[in-house]
Protein backbone atom coordinates (compact mmCIF):
# COMPACT_ATOMS: atom_id res chain seq x y z
CA UNK A 1 0.00 0.00 0.00
CA UNK A 2 1.36 3.39 -0.92
CA UNK A 3 1.59 6.30 1.46
CA UNK A 4 -1.08 8.05 -0.53
CA UNK A 5 -3.38 5.07 -0.20
CA UNK A 6 -2.83 4.95 3.53
CA UNK A 7 -3.76 8.54 3.95
CA UNK A 8 -6.89 8.38 1.82
CA UNK A 9 -8.23 5.06 3.06
CA UNK A 10 -8.73 6.23 6.62
CA UNK A 11 -5.35 6.52 8.29
CA UNK A 12 -6.77 6.14 11.76
CA UNK A 13 -8.14 2.64 11.12
CA UNK A 14 -4.93 1.36 9.59
CA UNK A 15 -3.07 -0.52 12.34
CA UNK A 16 0.31 -0.08 10.66
CA UNK A 17 -0.13 3.62 10.53
CA UNK A 18 -1.12 3.67 14.16
CA UNK A 19 1.96 1.67 15.17
CA UNK A 20 4.15 4.04 13.20
CA UNK A 21 2.46 6.96 14.83
CA UNK A 22 2.93 5.65 18.36
CA UNK A 23 6.55 4.80 17.57
CA UNK A 24 7.06 8.38 16.44
CA UNK A 25 5.51 9.68 19.63
CA UNK A 26 7.65 7.34 21.76
CA UNK A 27 10.77 8.47 19.92
CA UNK A 28 9.80 12.09 20.49
CA UNK A 29 9.51 11.52 24.23
CA UNK A 30 12.68 9.45 24.28
CA UNK A 31 14.77 11.98 22.38
CA UNK A 32 13.74 14.89 24.57
CA UNK A 33 16.27 13.74 27.16
CA UNK A 34 19.79 13.93 25.73
CA UNK A 35 21.03 11.40 28.30
CA UNK A 36 18.66 8.77 26.84
CA UNK A 37 19.98 9.54 23.37
CA UNK A 38 23.53 9.22 24.66
CA UNK A 39 22.55 5.85 26.12
CA UNK A 40 21.10 4.78 22.78
CA UNK A 41 24.32 5.81 21.02
CA UNK A 42 26.37 3.80 23.53
CA UNK A 43 24.11 0.77 23.10
CA UNK A 44 24.36 0.97 19.30
CA UNK A 45 28.15 1.27 19.59
CA UNK A 46 28.36 -1.82 21.80
CA UNK A 47 26.09 -3.87 19.54
CA UNK A 48 27.94 -2.69 16.42
CA UNK A 49 31.34 -3.57 17.91
CA UNK A 50 30.08 -6.96 19.05
CA UNK A 51 28.48 -7.88 15.74
CA UNK A 52 31.30 -6.68 13.51
CA UNK A 53 34.13 -7.56 15.91
CA UNK A 54 36.28 -9.36 13.29
CA UNK A 55 36.13 -6.32 10.99
CA UNK A 56 36.47 -3.45 13.48
CA UNK A 57 38.99 -4.89 15.96
CA UNK A 58 42.48 -3.63 15.07
CA UNK A 59 44.05 -7.06 15.71
CA UNK A 60 41.32 -9.69 15.31
CA UNK A 61 43.77 -12.58 15.63
CA UNK A 62 44.60 -11.44 19.17
CA UNK A 63 41.20 -12.60 20.40
CA UNK A 64 42.21 -16.24 20.44
CA UNK A 65 45.40 -18.20 20.86
CA UNK A 66 48.06 -15.62 20.13
CA UNK A 67 51.39 -14.92 21.75
CA UNK A 68 53.86 -12.12 21.04
CA UNK A 69 56.38 -11.95 23.84
CA UNK A 70 58.32 -9.14 22.16
CA UNK A 71 55.28 -6.88 22.29
CA UNK A 72 54.10 -7.76 25.81
CA UNK A 73 53.07 -5.27 28.53
CA UNK A 74 53.19 -2.25 26.21
CA UNK A 75 51.52 0.89 27.56
CA UNK A 76 48.76 2.53 25.49
CA UNK A 77 50.13 3.94 22.22
CA UNK A 78 48.87 4.64 18.70
CA UNK A 79 49.60 1.04 17.69
CA UNK A 80 47.75 -0.33 20.72
CA UNK A 81 45.25 2.23 21.96
CA UNK A 82 44.74 0.39 25.26
CA UNK A 83 48.14 -1.28 25.47
CA UNK A 84 48.95 -4.97 25.36
CA UNK A 85 48.63 -7.64 28.01
CA UNK A 86 51.15 -9.99 29.60
CA UNK A 87 51.56 -12.09 26.46
CA UNK A 88 51.43 -9.24 23.96
CA UNK A 89 47.76 -9.26 22.91
CA UNK A 90 46.04 -6.01 22.01
CA UNK A 91 43.64 -5.17 24.83
CA UNK A 92 41.24 -3.11 22.71
CA UNK A 93 40.73 -6.02 20.31
CA UNK A 94 40.12 -8.39 23.18
CA UNK A 95 37.58 -6.05 24.75
CA UNK A 96 35.70 -5.79 21.45
CA UNK A 97 35.53 -9.57 21.17
CA UNK A 98 34.58 -9.86 24.85
CA UNK A 99 31.52 -7.68 24.10
CA UNK A 100 30.32 -10.55 21.89
CA UNK A 101 30.28 -13.02 24.75
CA UNK A 102 28.77 -10.46 27.10
CA UNK A 103 25.89 -9.68 24.73
CA UNK A 104 25.39 -13.36 23.88
CA UNK A 105 25.08 -14.08 27.57
CA UNK A 106 22.60 -11.26 28.09
CA UNK A 107 20.49 -12.44 25.14
CA UNK A 108 20.42 -16.07 26.30
CA UNK A 109 19.69 -15.17 29.94
CA UNK A 110 16.88 -12.79 29.01
CA UNK A 111 15.46 -15.09 26.32
CA UNK A 112 14.83 -17.71 28.98
CA UNK A 113 14.16 -15.56 32.06
CA UNK A 114 11.68 -13.15 30.53
CA UNK A 115 9.14 -15.65 29.12
CA UNK A 116 9.50 -17.96 32.12
CA UNK A 117 9.30 -15.18 34.69
CA UNK A 118 6.48 -13.35 32.94
CA UNK A 119 4.37 -16.45 32.52
CA UNK A 120 4.75 -17.62 36.11
CA UNK A 121 4.36 -14.14 37.57
CA UNK A 122 1.29 -13.35 35.47
CA UNK A 123 -0.34 -16.64 36.37
CA UNK A 124 0.41 -16.23 40.07
CA UNK A 125 -0.91 -12.69 40.05
CA UNK A 126 -4.10 -13.55 38.20
CA UNK A 127 -4.82 -16.62 40.29
CA UNK A 128 -3.95 -14.88 43.53
CA UNK A 129 -5.59 -16.47 46.56
CA UNK A 130 -5.40 -19.96 45.09
CA UNK A 131 -2.85 -22.74 45.49
CA UNK A 132 -1.30 -21.76 42.13
CA UNK A 133 -0.15 -18.47 43.61
CA UNK A 134 1.12 -20.14 46.77
CA UNK A 135 3.22 -22.70 44.89
CA UNK A 136 4.72 -20.23 42.40
CA UNK A 137 5.45 -17.45 44.85
CA UNK A 138 6.87 -19.65 47.61
CA UNK A 139 9.25 -21.28 45.12
CA UNK A 140 10.22 -17.80 43.94
CA UNK A 141 10.81 -16.72 47.55
CA UNK A 142 13.42 -19.42 47.94
CA UNK A 143 15.27 -18.32 44.81
CA UNK A 144 15.29 -14.66 45.72
CA UNK A 145 16.40 -15.27 49.28
CA UNK A 146 19.91 -15.00 47.85
CA UNK A 147 21.05 -12.08 45.66
CA UNK A 148 21.53 -13.16 42.01
CA UNK A 149 25.29 -12.79 42.19
CA UNK A 150 25.62 -15.24 45.10
CA UNK A 151 23.24 -17.81 43.66
CA UNK A 152 24.89 -17.55 40.23
CA UNK A 153 28.35 -17.95 41.76
CA UNK A 154 27.36 -21.02 43.74
CA UNK A 155 25.56 -22.71 40.85
CA UNK A 156 28.37 -21.96 38.41
CA UNK A 157 30.81 -23.28 40.99
CA UNK A 158 29.19 -26.70 40.92
CA UNK A 159 29.12 -26.92 37.12
CA UNK A 160 32.03 -27.17 34.72
CA UNK A 161 33.51 -23.71 34.05
CA UNK A 162 32.25 -22.87 30.56
CA UNK A 163 30.43 -19.92 29.02
CA UNK A 164 27.32 -22.09 28.57
CA UNK A 165 27.25 -23.12 32.23
CA UNK A 166 27.76 -19.59 33.46
CA UNK A 167 24.74 -18.64 31.33
CA UNK A 168 22.72 -21.41 32.96
CA UNK A 169 23.81 -20.25 36.41
CA UNK A 170 22.85 -16.64 35.75
CA UNK A 171 19.52 -17.65 34.19
CA UNK A 172 18.55 -19.79 37.18
CA UNK A 173 19.15 -16.85 39.50
CA UNK A 174 17.55 -14.27 37.18
CA UNK A 175 14.05 -15.50 36.26
CA UNK A 176 12.48 -15.24 39.74
CA UNK A 177 12.98 -11.46 39.67
CA UNK A 178 10.83 -11.29 36.55
CA UNK A 179 8.25 -13.48 38.25
CA UNK A 180 8.10 -11.13 41.20
CA UNK A 181 7.83 -8.01 39.07
CA UNK A 182 5.09 -9.37 36.81
CA UNK A 183 3.29 -10.80 39.84
CA UNK A 184 3.10 -7.38 41.49
CA UNK A 185 1.91 -5.80 38.24
CA UNK A 186 -0.67 -8.50 37.54
CA UNK A 187 -2.05 -8.21 41.07
CA UNK A 188 -3.01 -4.60 40.49
CA UNK A 189 -4.03 -5.00 36.83
CA UNK A 190 -6.48 -7.81 37.52
CA UNK A 191 -8.66 -5.44 39.53
CA UNK A 192 -8.90 -2.92 36.69
CA UNK A 193 -12.31 -2.44 35.10
CA UNK A 194 -11.23 -3.58 31.66
CA UNK A 195 -10.14 -6.95 33.04
CA UNK A 196 -13.43 -7.33 34.91
CA UNK A 197 -15.29 -6.31 31.77
CA UNK A 198 -13.46 -8.95 29.77
CA UNK A 199 -14.31 -11.53 32.42
CA UNK A 200 -17.98 -10.55 32.35
CA UNK A 201 -18.17 -10.87 28.58
CA UNK A 202 -16.86 -14.39 28.94
CA UNK A 203 -13.32 -13.99 27.65
CA UNK A 204 -11.11 -17.03 28.13
CA UNK A 205 -8.35 -17.11 30.75
CA UNK A 206 -5.78 -17.22 27.96
CA UNK A 207 -7.27 -14.08 26.44
CA UNK A 208 -7.21 -12.25 29.76
CA UNK A 209 -3.65 -13.28 30.57
CA UNK A 210 -2.15 -12.55 27.18
CA UNK A 211 -4.33 -9.81 25.72
CA UNK A 212 -5.38 -7.86 28.82
CA UNK A 213 -2.68 -8.33 31.46
CA UNK A 214 0.48 -8.91 29.42
CA UNK A 215 0.29 -5.76 27.25
CA UNK A 216 -0.06 -3.68 30.38
CA UNK A 217 3.07 -5.21 31.85
CA UNK A 218 5.06 -4.58 28.70
CA UNK A 219 6.46 -1.14 29.46
CA UNK A 220 7.88 -2.30 32.80
CA UNK A 221 9.18 -5.46 31.14
CA UNK A 222 10.95 -3.58 28.34
CA UNK A 223 12.52 -1.18 30.83
CA UNK A 224 13.76 -3.98 33.04
CA UNK A 225 15.10 -5.90 30.05
CA UNK A 226 17.09 -2.90 28.82
CA UNK A 227 18.57 -2.33 32.27
CA UNK A 228 19.24 -6.02 32.77
CA UNK A 229 21.51 -6.33 29.73
CA UNK A 230 23.95 -4.19 31.69
CA UNK A 231 23.47 -6.06 34.96
CA UNK A 232 23.80 -9.49 33.35
CA UNK A 233 27.06 -8.33 31.78
CA UNK A 234 28.22 -7.27 35.23
CA UNK A 235 27.33 -10.56 36.91
CA UNK A 236 28.83 -12.45 33.96
CA UNK A 237 32.04 -10.49 34.40
CA UNK A 238 31.99 -11.28 38.11
CA UNK A 239 31.72 -14.99 37.30
CA UNK A 240 34.53 -14.91 34.76
CA UNK A 241 36.61 -12.86 37.21
CA UNK A 242 36.78 -15.81 39.60
CA UNK A 243 37.39 -18.20 36.71
CA UNK A 244 33.85 -19.53 36.23
CA UNK A 245 32.98 -18.48 32.72
CA UNK A 246 34.55 -18.30 29.31
CA UNK A 247 37.96 -19.94 29.62
CA UNK A 248 41.25 -18.49 28.33
CA UNK A 249 42.43 -17.87 25.68
CA UNK A 250 38.94 -16.65 24.75
CA UNK A 251 38.39 -13.08 25.90
CA UNK A 252 36.03 -12.27 28.80
CA UNK A 253 35.92 -8.94 30.59
CA UNK A 254 36.17 -10.45 34.08
CA UNK A 255 39.10 -12.70 33.19
CA UNK A 256 40.96 -9.74 31.72
CA UNK A 257 40.54 -7.74 34.94
CA UNK A 258 41.63 -10.70 37.05
CA UNK A 259 44.78 -11.04 34.91
CA UNK A 260 45.47 -7.33 35.07
CA UNK A 261 45.06 -7.04 38.83
CA UNK A 262 48.17 -9.13 39.35
CA UNK A 263 50.14 -6.56 37.36
CA UNK A 264 48.50 -3.68 39.10
CA UNK A 265 50.81 -0.79 39.89
CA UNK A 266 53.18 -1.06 36.95
CA UNK A 267 50.93 -2.27 34.10
CA UNK A 268 47.75 -0.51 35.18
CA UNK A 269 46.17 -0.50 31.72
CA UNK A 270 45.65 -4.27 31.65
CA UNK A 271 43.03 -4.12 34.43
CA UNK A 272 41.76 -0.56 34.03
CA UNK A 273 40.46 -0.68 30.46
CA UNK A 274 38.36 -3.87 30.81
CA UNK A 275 36.96 -2.37 34.04
CA UNK A 276 36.03 0.80 32.16
CA UNK A 277 34.53 -1.34 29.39
CA UNK A 278 32.14 -2.99 31.88
CA UNK A 279 31.28 0.45 33.22
CA UNK A 280 30.57 1.61 29.65
CA UNK A 281 28.18 -1.30 29.02
CA UNK A 282 26.29 -0.89 32.29
CA UNK A 283 26.11 2.90 31.94
CA UNK A 284 24.94 2.69 28.31
CA UNK A 285 22.15 0.22 29.00
CA UNK A 286 21.14 2.09 32.16
CA UNK A 287 20.76 5.40 30.36
CA UNK A 288 18.93 3.62 27.55
CA UNK A 289 16.65 1.78 29.98
CA UNK A 290 15.81 4.95 31.89
CA UNK A 291 15.00 6.60 28.56
CA UNK A 292 12.65 3.75 27.66
CA UNK A 293 10.95 4.05 31.04
CA UNK A 294 10.35 7.76 30.51
CA UNK A 295 9.18 7.26 26.94
CA UNK A 296 6.77 4.40 27.70
CA UNK A 297 5.31 5.68 30.94
CA UNK A 298 1.92 7.28 30.47
CA UNK A 299 1.69 11.07 30.26
CA UNK A 300 1.68 12.72 33.64
CA UNK A 301 -1.46 14.59 34.39
Amino acid at each position, binding site marked *: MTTEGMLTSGAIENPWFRTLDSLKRTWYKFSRNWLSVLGLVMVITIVFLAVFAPYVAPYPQHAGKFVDFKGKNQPPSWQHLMGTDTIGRDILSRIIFAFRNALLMAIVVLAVSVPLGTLTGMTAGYYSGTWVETVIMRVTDVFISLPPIILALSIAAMLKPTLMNSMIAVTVSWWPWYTRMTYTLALSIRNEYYVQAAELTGASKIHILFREILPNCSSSLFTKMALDVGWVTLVGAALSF*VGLGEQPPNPALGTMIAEGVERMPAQWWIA*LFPALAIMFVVLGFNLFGDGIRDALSPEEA
Partner: protein
Amino acid sequence: MRLGPFILRRLAISIFVLFGLSILIFLIARIVPGDPARMALGPRAPVDVVERLRQQMHLDKPLLQQYGLWLWEVVHGNLGDSLVTRRPVKQDIREFFPATLELVGLTAIFIAVAGISLGVISARYSNTWFDNVVRLFSYLGIVTPAFAWAVILMLLFGFVWHLFPTYGRLTEGVIPPSTITGMYTVDSLLNGRFDLFCDAVVHLILPAIALALPPMSQAARITRSSMADNQNKDCIASMIAYGVPNRIVTGKYLLKPSLISPITVMALDIAATFGYAFMVEKIFGFPGMARYGIQVMLNKDVNAIVGVVMVLGVVFITLNIVVDIIVAYLDPRIRLLGRSV
Protein backbone atom coordinates in the same frame (compact mmCIF):
# COMPACT_ATOMS: atom_id res chain seq x y z
CA MET B 1 2.64 -2.44 70.04
CA ARG B 2 2.07 -5.86 68.54
CA LEU B 3 5.60 -6.40 67.35
CA GLY B 4 5.94 -9.84 68.95
CA PRO B 5 3.51 -11.82 66.77
CA PHE B 6 4.80 -9.96 63.72
CA ILE B 7 8.38 -11.06 64.38
CA LEU B 8 7.25 -14.62 65.13
CA ARG B 9 5.44 -14.82 61.81
CA ARG B 10 8.46 -13.46 59.95
CA LEU B 11 10.62 -16.02 61.71
CA ALA B 12 8.33 -18.86 60.63
CA ILE B 13 8.45 -17.70 57.01
CA SER B 14 12.24 -17.41 57.22
CA ILE B 15 12.62 -20.96 58.45
CA PHE B 16 10.48 -22.11 55.56
CA VAL B 17 12.64 -20.18 53.07
CA LEU B 18 15.82 -21.56 54.60
CA PHE B 19 14.39 -25.07 54.30
CA GLY B 20 13.55 -24.41 50.65
CA LEU B 21 17.02 -23.04 50.04
CA SER B 22 18.54 -26.19 51.50
CA ILE B 23 16.49 -28.33 49.10
CA LEU B 24 17.43 -26.13 46.15
CA ILE B 25 21.13 -26.12 46.86
CA PHE B 26 21.20 -29.81 47.73
CA LEU B 27 19.40 -30.69 44.50
CA ILE B 28 21.78 -28.61 42.41
CA ALA B 29 24.76 -30.18 44.14
CA ARG B 30 23.41 -33.66 43.37
CA ILE B 31 22.09 -33.27 39.84
CA VAL B 32 25.23 -31.73 38.38
CA PRO B 33 26.87 -34.12 35.97
CA GLY B 34 29.85 -35.92 37.41
CA ASP B 35 30.52 -37.87 40.55
CA PRO B 36 31.50 -35.60 43.48
CA ALA B 37 33.62 -38.33 45.02
CA ARG B 38 35.48 -38.91 41.76
CA MET B 39 35.99 -35.19 41.29
CA ALA B 40 37.33 -34.80 44.82
CA LEU B 41 39.86 -37.58 44.47
CA GLY B 42 40.96 -36.94 40.91
CA PRO B 43 40.85 -39.14 37.84
CA ARG B 44 43.69 -41.41 38.93
CA ALA B 45 42.31 -42.51 42.30
CA PRO B 46 41.66 -46.27 42.58
CA VAL B 47 38.06 -47.40 42.18
CA ASP B 48 37.72 -48.87 45.68
CA VAL B 49 38.88 -45.61 47.34
CA VAL B 50 36.33 -43.65 45.33
CA GLU B 51 33.69 -46.20 46.27
CA ARG B 52 34.53 -45.81 49.96
CA LEU B 53 34.21 -42.02 49.76
CA ARG B 54 30.91 -42.45 47.92
CA GLN B 55 29.63 -44.52 50.81
CA GLN B 56 30.98 -42.01 53.29
CA MET B 57 29.14 -39.22 51.48
CA HIS B 58 25.99 -41.41 51.26
CA LEU B 59 26.07 -41.06 47.46
CA ASP B 60 25.01 -44.70 47.06
CA LYS B 61 21.65 -44.15 48.76
CA PRO B 62 18.45 -42.83 47.18
CA LEU B 63 18.20 -39.05 46.76
CA LEU B 64 15.54 -38.53 49.42
CA GLN B 65 17.48 -40.49 51.99
CA GLN B 66 20.65 -38.57 51.08
CA TYR B 67 18.84 -35.32 51.69
CA GLY B 68 17.45 -36.54 55.01
CA LEU B 69 20.87 -37.66 56.23
CA TRP B 70 22.45 -34.41 55.07
CA LEU B 71 19.76 -32.24 56.66
CA TRP B 72 20.10 -34.14 59.93
CA GLU B 73 23.80 -33.30 60.00
CA VAL B 74 23.23 -29.65 59.00
CA VAL B 75 20.63 -29.14 61.71
CA HIS B 76 23.21 -30.39 64.20
CA GLY B 77 25.68 -27.85 62.88
CA ASN B 78 27.77 -30.29 60.89
CA LEU B 79 28.38 -29.21 57.31
CA GLY B 80 30.60 -32.16 56.39
CA ASP B 81 34.27 -32.22 55.46
CA SER B 82 35.78 -30.10 52.76
CA LEU B 83 36.98 -32.35 49.97
CA VAL B 84 39.95 -30.06 49.28
CA THR B 85 41.29 -29.04 52.66
CA ARG B 86 40.17 -32.32 54.33
CA ARG B 87 38.95 -30.35 57.31
CA PRO B 88 35.40 -29.80 58.56
CA VAL B 89 33.76 -27.07 56.46
CA LYS B 90 32.63 -25.45 59.68
CA GLN B 91 36.22 -25.01 60.82
CA ASP B 92 37.25 -23.52 57.46
CA ILE B 93 34.36 -21.09 57.51
CA ARG B 94 35.12 -20.06 61.07
CA GLU B 95 38.66 -19.28 60.02
CA PHE B 96 37.95 -17.27 56.87
CA PHE B 97 34.53 -15.78 57.45
CA PRO B 98 35.33 -13.19 60.19
CA ALA B 99 37.61 -11.20 57.86
CA THR B 100 34.84 -10.94 55.27
CA LEU B 101 32.26 -10.18 57.95
CA GLU B 102 34.44 -7.34 59.21
CA LEU B 103 34.80 -5.94 55.69
CA VAL B 104 31.10 -6.23 54.89
CA GLY B 105 30.24 -4.74 58.28
CA LEU B 106 32.27 -1.60 57.62
CA THR B 107 30.80 -1.47 54.11
CA ALA B 108 27.30 -1.66 55.55
CA ILE B 109 28.07 1.25 57.88
CA PHE B 110 29.34 3.30 54.93
CA ILE B 111 26.27 2.43 52.86
CA ALA B 112 23.79 3.29 55.59
CA VAL B 113 25.41 6.45 56.94
CA ALA B 114 26.72 8.01 53.74
CA GLY B 115 23.89 6.84 51.50
CA ILE B 116 21.08 8.11 53.69
CA SER B 117 22.74 11.38 54.68
CA LEU B 118 23.65 12.20 51.08
CA GLY B 119 20.09 11.45 50.02
CA VAL B 120 18.59 13.54 52.79
CA ILE B 121 20.85 16.55 52.16
CA SER B 122 20.28 16.19 48.44
CA ALA B 123 16.51 16.24 48.91
CA ARG B 124 16.68 19.07 51.44
CA TYR B 125 18.63 21.26 49.00
CA SER B 126 17.07 19.83 45.86
CA ASN B 127 17.99 21.43 42.54
CA THR B 128 21.01 23.21 43.95
CA TRP B 129 24.56 22.51 42.77
CA PHE B 130 25.05 20.08 45.68
CA ASP B 131 22.00 18.09 44.66
CA ASN B 132 23.14 17.97 41.04
CA VAL B 133 26.63 16.80 41.98
CA VAL B 134 25.20 14.06 44.23
CA ARG B 135 22.79 12.92 41.50
CA LEU B 136 25.50 12.77 38.85
CA PHE B 137 27.91 10.88 41.09
CA SER B 138 25.26 8.51 42.36
CA TYR B 139 24.48 7.58 38.75
CA LEU B 140 28.16 6.91 38.08
CA GLY B 141 28.37 5.06 41.38
CA ILE B 142 25.53 2.72 40.55
CA VAL B 143 26.73 1.75 37.09
CA THR B 144 30.33 1.12 38.11
CA PRO B 145 30.71 -2.33 39.62
CA ALA B 146 32.58 -2.73 42.90
CA PHE B 147 35.52 -4.46 41.27
CA ALA B 148 35.98 -1.61 38.80
CA TRP B 149 35.94 0.81 41.73
CA ALA B 150 38.50 -1.39 43.45
CA VAL B 151 40.86 -1.09 40.49
CA ILE B 152 40.34 2.67 40.22
CA LEU B 153 40.69 3.33 43.97
CA MET B 154 43.75 1.14 44.20
CA LEU B 155 45.43 3.15 41.44
CA LEU B 156 44.47 6.54 42.86
CA PHE B 157 44.93 6.09 46.59
CA GLY B 158 47.48 3.33 46.69
CA PHE B 159 49.85 4.25 43.90
CA VAL B 160 49.30 7.88 42.95
CA TRP B 161 48.64 9.45 46.35
CA HIS B 162 49.98 6.76 48.73
CA LEU B 163 47.28 7.45 51.30
CA PHE B 164 46.12 3.97 52.18
CA PRO B 165 47.70 0.52 52.13
CA THR B 166 46.41 -1.64 49.27
CA TYR B 167 47.32 -5.13 50.40
CA GLY B 168 46.30 -7.49 53.19
CA ARG B 169 44.60 -7.05 56.54
CA LEU B 170 47.55 -5.68 58.53
CA THR B 171 50.93 -4.17 57.74
CA GLU B 172 53.39 -6.93 56.90
CA GLY B 173 55.25 -8.24 59.91
CA VAL B 174 52.67 -7.07 62.41
CA ILE B 175 51.46 -9.89 64.63
CA PRO B 176 47.65 -10.11 64.60
CA PRO B 177 45.78 -9.86 67.90
CA SER B 178 44.97 -13.11 69.68
CA THR B 179 41.85 -14.65 68.22
CA ILE B 180 38.61 -14.07 70.07
CA THR B 181 36.11 -13.37 67.30
CA GLY B 182 38.53 -13.54 64.38
CA MET B 183 37.69 -9.97 63.44
CA TYR B 184 40.93 -7.99 63.86
CA THR B 185 39.20 -4.72 64.66
CA VAL B 186 37.12 -6.25 67.46
CA ASP B 187 39.93 -8.45 68.77
CA SER B 188 42.44 -5.62 68.95
CA LEU B 189 39.99 -3.49 70.92
CA LEU B 190 39.23 -6.39 73.26
CA ASN B 191 42.97 -6.77 73.78
CA GLY B 192 43.33 -3.04 74.36
CA ARG B 193 45.66 -2.64 71.38
CA PHE B 194 44.58 0.64 69.83
CA ASP B 195 47.53 0.75 67.40
CA LEU B 196 46.47 -2.59 65.92
CA PHE B 197 42.90 -1.38 65.65
CA CYS B 198 43.99 1.64 63.61
CA ASP B 199 46.16 -0.53 61.38
CA ALA B 200 43.28 -2.96 60.73
CA VAL B 201 40.83 -0.15 59.99
CA VAL B 202 43.22 1.59 57.59
CA HIS B 203 43.55 -1.68 55.68
CA LEU B 204 39.79 -2.06 55.53
CA ILE B 205 39.02 1.41 54.21
CA LEU B 206 39.79 1.08 50.49
CA PRO B 207 38.09 -2.29 49.92
CA ALA B 208 35.12 -1.15 51.98
CA ILE B 209 34.74 2.05 49.95
CA ALA B 210 35.00 0.09 46.70
CA LEU B 211 32.26 -2.28 47.91
CA ALA B 212 30.14 0.52 49.36
CA LEU B 213 30.11 2.94 46.43
CA PRO B 214 27.51 1.24 44.18
CA PRO B 215 24.95 0.40 46.92
CA MET B 216 25.63 3.71 48.65
CA SER B 217 24.81 5.61 45.49
CA GLN B 218 21.69 3.52 45.06
CA ALA B 219 20.65 4.27 48.66
CA ALA B 220 21.26 8.00 48.17
CA ARG B 221 19.15 8.02 45.02
CA ILE B 222 16.24 6.16 46.55
CA THR B 223 16.34 8.22 49.76
CA ARG B 224 16.32 11.42 47.71
CA SER B 225 13.38 10.40 45.55
CA SER B 226 11.30 9.06 48.41
CA MET B 227 12.02 12.22 50.45
CA ALA B 228 11.02 14.28 47.43
CA ASP B 229 7.75 12.32 47.09
CA ASN B 230 6.87 12.81 50.74
CA GLN B 231 7.89 16.47 50.75
CA ASN B 232 4.93 17.30 48.52
CA LYS B 233 2.35 15.76 50.85
CA ASP B 234 -0.26 17.95 52.49
CA CYS B 235 0.66 16.87 56.00
CA ILE B 236 4.17 18.24 55.57
CA ALA B 237 2.87 21.50 54.12
CA SER B 238 0.50 21.93 57.06
CA MET B 239 3.28 21.21 59.53
CA ILE B 240 5.42 23.90 57.95
CA ALA B 241 2.39 26.20 58.05
CA TYR B 242 1.96 25.54 61.76
CA GLY B 243 5.53 26.70 62.24
CA VAL B 244 7.12 23.38 63.17
CA PRO B 245 10.87 23.94 62.85
CA ASN B 246 12.36 22.71 59.61
CA ARG B 247 14.83 20.52 61.48
CA ILE B 248 12.01 18.60 63.14
CA VAL B 249 9.93 18.34 59.97
CA THR B 250 12.85 16.86 58.03
CA GLY B 251 14.43 14.81 60.79
CA LYS B 252 11.29 13.34 62.29
CA TYR B 253 8.19 13.50 60.13
CA LEU B 254 9.82 13.34 56.71
CA LEU B 255 12.65 10.94 57.41
CA LYS B 256 10.68 8.13 59.04
CA PRO B 257 8.33 7.25 56.15
CA SER B 258 11.03 8.04 53.59
CA LEU B 259 13.48 5.53 55.02
CA ILE B 260 11.33 2.46 54.36
CA SER B 261 12.18 1.87 50.72
CA PRO B 262 15.91 2.71 50.96
CA ILE B 263 16.29 0.35 53.93
CA THR B 264 14.56 -2.50 52.09
CA VAL B 265 16.79 -2.01 49.06
CA MET B 266 19.87 -1.64 51.23
CA ALA B 267 19.30 -5.05 52.84
CA LEU B 268 19.49 -6.79 49.50
CA ASP B 269 22.48 -4.69 48.45
CA ILE B 270 24.37 -5.49 51.63
CA ALA B 271 23.60 -9.16 51.05
CA ALA B 272 24.93 -8.89 47.49
CA THR B 273 28.08 -7.29 48.92
CA PHE B 274 29.13 -10.75 50.12
CA GLY B 275 29.25 -11.76 46.46
CA TYR B 276 31.18 -8.74 45.25
CA ALA B 277 33.50 -9.08 48.26
CA PHE B 278 34.93 -12.11 46.46
CA MET B 279 36.33 -9.95 43.70
CA VAL B 280 37.33 -6.98 45.84
CA GLU B 281 39.11 -9.22 48.35
CA LYS B 282 41.04 -10.83 45.54
CA ILE B 283 42.07 -7.45 44.13
CA PHE B 284 43.25 -6.15 47.50
CA GLY B 285 44.85 -9.43 48.57
CA PHE B 286 42.53 -9.49 51.54
CA PRO B 287 42.55 -12.95 53.14
CA GLY B 288 38.81 -13.47 53.63
CA MET B 289 36.29 -15.90 52.18
CA ALA B 290 37.39 -15.10 48.63
CA ARG B 291 40.60 -17.06 48.72
CA TYR B 292 38.85 -20.04 50.27
CA GLY B 293 35.72 -19.62 48.17
CA ILE B 294 37.54 -19.43 44.84
CA GLN B 295 39.66 -22.42 45.80
CA VAL B 296 36.66 -24.60 46.65
CA MET B 297 34.78 -23.36 43.58
CA LEU B 298 37.52 -24.19 41.14
CA ASN B 299 38.00 -27.59 42.77
CA LYS B 300 34.29 -28.46 42.70
CA ASP B 301 34.31 -28.98 46.45
CA VAL B 302 30.58 -29.65 46.72
CA ASN B 303 30.43 -29.92 50.52
CA ALA B 304 32.23 -26.63 51.03
CA ILE B 305 30.14 -24.78 48.43
CA VAL B 306 26.90 -26.02 49.95
CA GLY B 307 28.20 -25.11 53.40
CA VAL B 308 29.14 -21.59 52.38
CA VAL B 309 25.79 -21.05 50.68
CA MET B 310 23.89 -22.27 53.73
CA VAL B 311 25.87 -19.97 56.03
CA LEU B 312 25.26 -17.02 53.69
CA GLY B 313 21.58 -17.98 53.53
CA VAL B 314 21.33 -17.77 57.31
CA VAL B 315 23.13 -14.41 57.27
CA PHE B 316 20.77 -12.97 54.65
CA ILE B 317 17.65 -14.21 56.33
CA THR B 318 18.78 -12.73 59.64
CA LEU B 319 19.49 -9.49 57.81
CA ASN B 320 16.02 -9.55 56.30
CA ILE B 321 14.36 -10.11 59.66
CA VAL B 322 16.32 -7.20 61.14
CA VAL B 323 15.20 -5.01 58.25
CA ASP B 324 11.59 -6.13 58.66
CA ILE B 325 11.72 -5.16 62.32
CA ILE B 326 13.20 -1.75 61.51
CA VAL B 327 10.56 -1.19 58.84
CA ALA B 328 7.82 -2.32 61.21
CA TYR B 329 9.13 0.16 63.74
CA LEU B 330 9.10 2.92 61.12
CA ASP B 331 5.73 2.10 59.59
CA PRO B 332 2.84 1.55 62.01
CA ARG B 333 0.68 0.18 59.16
CA ILE B 334 2.97 -2.83 58.85
CA ARG B 335 3.39 -3.18 62.58
CA LEU B 336 -0.30 -3.04 63.46
CA LEU B 337 -1.99 -4.52 60.41
CA GLY B 338 0.76 -6.93 59.49
CA ARG B 339 0.88 -5.79 55.88
CA SER B 340 2.18 -2.96 53.79
CA VAL B 341 -0.38 -0.63 52.29
